[in-house]
């Protein structure tokens, strides 16, 4: 009965959601327009903190985009049937997230009107320039990957294309990590651990986003996911969250061990006010330990628990990126080691930053773009996973 009532209003719900998404995209557009007209003075950014909250949104979406495709890879390359059934949906969500992330990244530029210059003037030594190439390749490969999966005649190509996609994705997320790893003078960055850390984080964040999208689709279509499949995916999310926590811990421990870095670590983990709080409460507790408890504590596998755990992982990812990007810039550069310094340019001071409404709206606008692309494309393209009965059990 529920199903009938649902389908009668289904179309209306759909358009209402599209309208809601469009509203937030429009608010993002207004934010972009304000920033374009007045400059970054309307944001909380300044000359000490040059990358603000838009980068948190953008990097979350770009890293998660790569991670979502991991689900496709598990299916296509490693031949896991329950994951193979999810590859088309993974491909769509990945493209949606990358579009959203790149939109935020580009519109946060000082001169977004000049974005074409990024294509006409290429600097081979810039990891940013490599990323422009990696992102466009990602789109091409993801589109090709979808085609090989959705068009029956092309199915034979899905494995080689999937393999290329897998390699490309690993390089792309390494590239995102390298943006920070190459910043040798910043205490927070300049670590070779960052590219692998970003790859593992992408697995966790991508899986979390996918589980939320999947649960929404199943609820929308009034379908129930095979508990065996849900249980497998839930356990994999748990494994990814533990691995992420491990790499984040190693990253901080190596820093703590280097005398020159301890000041920064004390700041980020203990003395830095908001940053330690967001790190411990946001990332460690809410974003890692609580979802792990939900995942591993013995209870009946149910969708609500998995969705709650996934949403917590997503909240944790924003907390981690906030501390990493903003906290990393807030701590002053060590220009004169061994000296206490001060100047009108705030040398030696902890930089202050409070995100403003326009920059938050720009980030939310990017999420809204990803949301719109996801709900429209999943309606247009048949991407809901079709599981053969007891497939999961046979595979286990």
């Amino acid at each position: 009965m529920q199903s009938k009532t649902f389908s009668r209003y289904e179309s209306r719900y759909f358009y209402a959601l599209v309208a809601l998404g469009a509203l937030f995209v429009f608010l993002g557009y207004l934010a972009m327009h304000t920033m374009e007209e007045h400059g970054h003075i309307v944001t909380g950014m300044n000359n000490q903190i040059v990358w603000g909250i838009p980068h948190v949104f953008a990097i979350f979406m770009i890293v998660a985009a790569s991670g979502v495709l991991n689900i496709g890879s598990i299916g296509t390359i490693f031949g896991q049937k329950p994951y193979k059934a999810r590859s088309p949906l993974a491909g769509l969500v990945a493209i949606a997230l990358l579009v959203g992330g790149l939109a935020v990244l580009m519109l946060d530029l000082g001169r977004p009107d000049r974005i074409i210059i990024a294509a006409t003037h290429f600097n081979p030594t810039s990891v940013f320039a490599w990323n422009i190439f990696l992102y466009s390749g990602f789109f091409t490969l993801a589109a090709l990957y979808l085609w090989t999966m959705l068009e029956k005649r092309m199915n034979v190509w899905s494995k080689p294309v999937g393999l290329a996609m897998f390699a490309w994705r690993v390089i792309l997320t390494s590239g995102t990590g390298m943006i920070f790893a190459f910043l040798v003078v910043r205490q927070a960055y300049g670590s070779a651990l960052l590219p692998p850390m970003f790859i593992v984080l992408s697995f966790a964040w991508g899986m979390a986003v996918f589980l939320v999208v999947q649960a929404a689709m199943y609820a929308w279509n009034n379908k129930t996911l095979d508990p065996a499949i849900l249980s497998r995916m839930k356990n994999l999310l748990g494994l990814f969250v533990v691995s992420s926590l491990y790499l984040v811990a190693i990253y901080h421990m190596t820093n703590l061990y280097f005398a020159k870095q301890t000041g920064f670590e004390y700041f980020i983990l203990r003395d830095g006010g908001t940053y330690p709080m967001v790190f411990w409460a946001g990332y460690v507790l809410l974003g890692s330990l609580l979802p792990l408890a939900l995942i591993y504590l013995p209870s009946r596998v149910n969708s609500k628990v998995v969705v709650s755990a996934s949403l917590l992982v997503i909240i944790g990812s924003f907390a981690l990126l906030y501390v990493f990007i903003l906290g990393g810039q807030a701590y002053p550069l060590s220009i004169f080691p061994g000296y206490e310094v001060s100047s009108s340019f705030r040398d030696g001071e902890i930089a202050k930053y409070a995100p403003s409404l326009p920059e938050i709206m720009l980030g939310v606008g990017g999420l809204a773009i990803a949301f719109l692309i996801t709900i429209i494309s999943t309606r247009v393209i048949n991407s809901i996973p079709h599981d053969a009965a007891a497939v999961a059990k046979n595979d286990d």
Partner: protein
Amino acid sequence: MNEVNLDTKPNLDRRDFLTKSSIGLAGLAIAPGMMLFDLAHGRAQDEAVSNKVRWGMLIDNTKCESGCNDCVTACNTENGLSGGTKPTDSQWIRKVQLKDTLTGHVSSLPMMCQHCEHPPCVDVCPTQASFKRADGIVLVDKHICIGCRYCVMACPYQARSFVHEVLTDQKTEVPRGKGTVESCTLCVHRIDKGGTTACAEACSKAGHEAILFGDLNDPESAISKRIRSVASIQVRADLGLNTGVRYEGI
């Protein structure tokens, strides 16, 4: 007519001779002057920048007066900066107060773009808007800077500023623009006319002589002689960037 012509011919020859010889003499007289002018002015407008010179500065920390801000003021005036010190205001040069944490010794020095031989800002710039001229000056091409701020993140000296607001009253010789990154240009517009930097000039005028500007590649230049005879350092020399700005007395 013919007679006249015949008569005037030797006259013309003599005139011709006088003209040519005076041009020659004038040339001989002017040439050394022109050569001196050339030496003093570095290079002609249509001549390409050469790596035969490397512009740099030596800053004597012991001569830099703690309360003096003349170099900063001169830079602001020269380049049309507002002189504001809000976190969003551009500061191409700033006075940094230093206190040795172990000994308590206090000093101050001007800090600006160090014009590295291997500038991290140039490495990371996606569009090659950050570039290094052949003569060692690190600049930003305001026409192709997209405002990504990656160079600001990469600079070890916090020397770069991002233009956060619409600008008015700009200097024609110093192009700037909202949404782009900027930093000390080593007063490139003055150097190209054979001048010195505004900060060095202001420091001399104030009687401190703490900033010495010159060609690091010319062994006979005052700066080269000075760095040969006294101990000077590069800030964060451990990074291996080979800065064009050096400090003595830190």
